[in-house]
């Protein structure tokens, strides 16, 4: 009872120290401003693209091609005897683009590759295709018949595409939670060591109590930030659907209760496990600016990279779905694809939980050892030796 009360006290202290609603709101405000800036800049760029660029062609160019080009370009026409002079002027007037058609094909004259090259290429291909069809006397209907893709009626007993979306959604949230925790945990532990608060605290509570409180408090802080951002994202999403007329039922189709429960369990345990690992690493760092051990704090990057590149069908995924540092994303992904038995799901979760349990114990031992080595950062050898004695 005393243990729980003390852990709760430390948890709430850490949570209140790091979770600042005012700062969260400020972050969201900045996010909204950035979103609108990106939106308006994108819109401006799109409208700028809609303006027709000018293109010079031969007065005698085929009427059909001229008609196609006129839909996308502002056309100027010149006679053949003007061509050479026009080409000479291109170096002076760098915006000029000349499209010429001779017997060998099309030639494009421009000071540098024009931005509208792709658009022009598409029109010319379409024009060439039409001409080829006319030459072999192939009607438009017949061509479409030839190119028609094969029809596959999809009738599955279980729909997984929506659940895949959920997996990626939770993986994304987990990455965010681990990255946020990384910053908080680092500050919480190394900061207190530098402020020399540790000795007074461990005279009142056991290092294990303090470490457990920190891990829970920082996890709670990370999850709170996550919930804040999730709510904002959902509200933004609803607003998006409101304006785009996409039915909300697409969202509800994705929501699969058993999947959500499994993902939440794995996600929560994984964040706790990562926080314990980060706490153990932060405990051996005395001076974050000069410690060689600080680079170990980049371990979560490995988790992020693996999460992003993992393919649930891959054989490596079987190993990663059991390996505690990656199982929280790999196992749900495999489960969604449908090649995982329930015992595997349970086994992986138990292994993840056991790893969290042992890492929090290790973090407390390492912490106890390192706080007493005031001023001097312990070597790995010393940590292992003293942790065994502790």
């Amino acid at each position, binding site marked *: 009872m005393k243990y729980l009360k*003390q852990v709760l006290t*430390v948890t709430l202290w850490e949570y209140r*120290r790091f979770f600042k609603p005012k700062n969260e709101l400020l972050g969201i405000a900045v996010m909204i401003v950035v979103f609108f800036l990106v939106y308006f800049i994108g819109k401006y760029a799109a409208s700028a693209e809609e303006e027709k660029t000018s293109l010079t062609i031969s007065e005698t160019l085929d009427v059909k091609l001229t008609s196609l080009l006129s839909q996308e370009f502002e056309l100027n026409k010149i006679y053949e005897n003007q061509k050479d002079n026009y080409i000479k002027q291109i170096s002076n007037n760098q915006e000029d683009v000349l499209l010429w058609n001779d017997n060998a094909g099309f030639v494009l004259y421009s000071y540098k590759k024009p931005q509208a090259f792709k658009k022009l290429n598409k029109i010319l291909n379409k024009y060439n295709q039409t001409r080829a069809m006319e030459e072999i006397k192939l009607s438009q209907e017949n061509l479409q018949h030839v190119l028609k893709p094969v029809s596959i009626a999809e009738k599955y007993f279980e729909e997984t595409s929506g659940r895949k979306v959920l997996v990626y959604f939770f993986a994304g949230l987990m990455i965010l939670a681990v990255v946020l925790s990384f910053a908080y945990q680092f500050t919480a532990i190394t900061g207190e060591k530098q*402020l*020399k*608060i540790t*000795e*007074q605290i461990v*005279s009142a509570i056991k290092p294990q109590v303090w470490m457990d409180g920190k891990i829970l408090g920082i996890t709670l802080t990370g999850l709170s930030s996550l919930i804040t951002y999730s709510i904002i994202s959902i509200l933004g999403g609803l607003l998006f659907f409101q304006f785009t007329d996409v039915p909300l039922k697409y969202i509800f189709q994705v929501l699969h209760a058993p999947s959500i429960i499994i993902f939440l369990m794995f996600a929560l345990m994984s964040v706790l496990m990562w926080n314990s690992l980060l706490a153990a690493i932060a405990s051996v760092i005395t001076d974050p600016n000069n410690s060689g051990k600080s680079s170990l704090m980049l371990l979560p990057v490995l988790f992020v990279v693996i999460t992003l590149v993992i393919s649930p069908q891959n054989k490596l995924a079987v190993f990663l779905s059991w390996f505690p540092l990656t199982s929280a994303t790999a196992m749900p992904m495999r489960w969604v694809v449908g090649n995982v038995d329930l015992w595997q799901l349970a086994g992986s979760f138990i292994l993840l939980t056991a790893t969290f349990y042992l890492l929090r114990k290790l973090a407390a031992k390492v912490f106890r050892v390192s706080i007493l080595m005031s001023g001097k950062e312990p070597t790995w050898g010393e940590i292992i030796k003293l942790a065994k*004695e502790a």
Partner: protein
Amino acid sequence: MNNTLSENILEVNSLNKRYKNIHAVKDISFSLEQGDVFAFLGPNGAGKTTTLRMLLDIIKPDSGNIQWNVNGNAGSVPPSENIGYLPEERGLYIDVPIIKSLLYMAAIRGMDPAIAKKAAMEWLEKFELADRAKEKLQVLSKGNQQKIQFIASIIHKPAFAILDEPFSGLDPINQEKFIEYIRDLNLQGTTILLSAHQMPLVEKIAKKVFLINQGQKIFCGKLSDLYKDFDKQQVLNISFNSNVNEDRLKLLPEVENINWVNPQEVKITFKSGVNLNNALSELIKIDSINNISSHNPDLHDIFLNLVKNHKL
């Protein structure tokens, strides 16, 4: 044995701690009774902080036994809600309002939040810092930060308080105030174990002392007994006309110990029962004397004598 245990709030037997090749604490034993003010004295690196950390179960002894008996709770680990600790290495959350830091420290010692707030404000009033309760610690002067640290360690009215160097960083006025606060705390029933270097201050409040040097006990007992051991010794403060050669002073058979005030002034402790007339006539031969004063050895003199003459 059981009878003794029930009277002692803390009993330490044959405590040992080694760090690699250093025997930091060698077979030390002592005990504290309820209501004691016990001074733990020794030079830097003598093993004081290591001993205090072992008492608080922050580090484990290699051998020996620690027995606490606080408010009926007996065991080798101190009950945290009844223990206060002011570590030598000071530190609190500098970016958090003072009152919040104090309430957190009280909460982890199991104190009720409402009672803790009342106690915190009372102590802040006492230290004339009540109007700064909501400020962050980092804006306070070093001396005032020291006061907050002190409050944090005793806010929960512990039955036993360990104060490691409570006077360091304080000006003389605040040192005197701290003596009063420690005395008040003791009068309210808190047993005090303090480690300090300021002997004149320790003399004012300590009832018992433990002198430690290089991990070993050199004296443990009542302060009055310590004075009694040295009351036959005389200390002379002698000011010579010019710089004096220490080797010549050391040759005098009556001299127990020499402490230099400056190159011309020396504090000499003489062996018990020696004839001072003989000694003085020898001293005059060394150099002419400007000034001379005599007094009984104080704790500072005794401490220096014991440490200097301590044979391992």
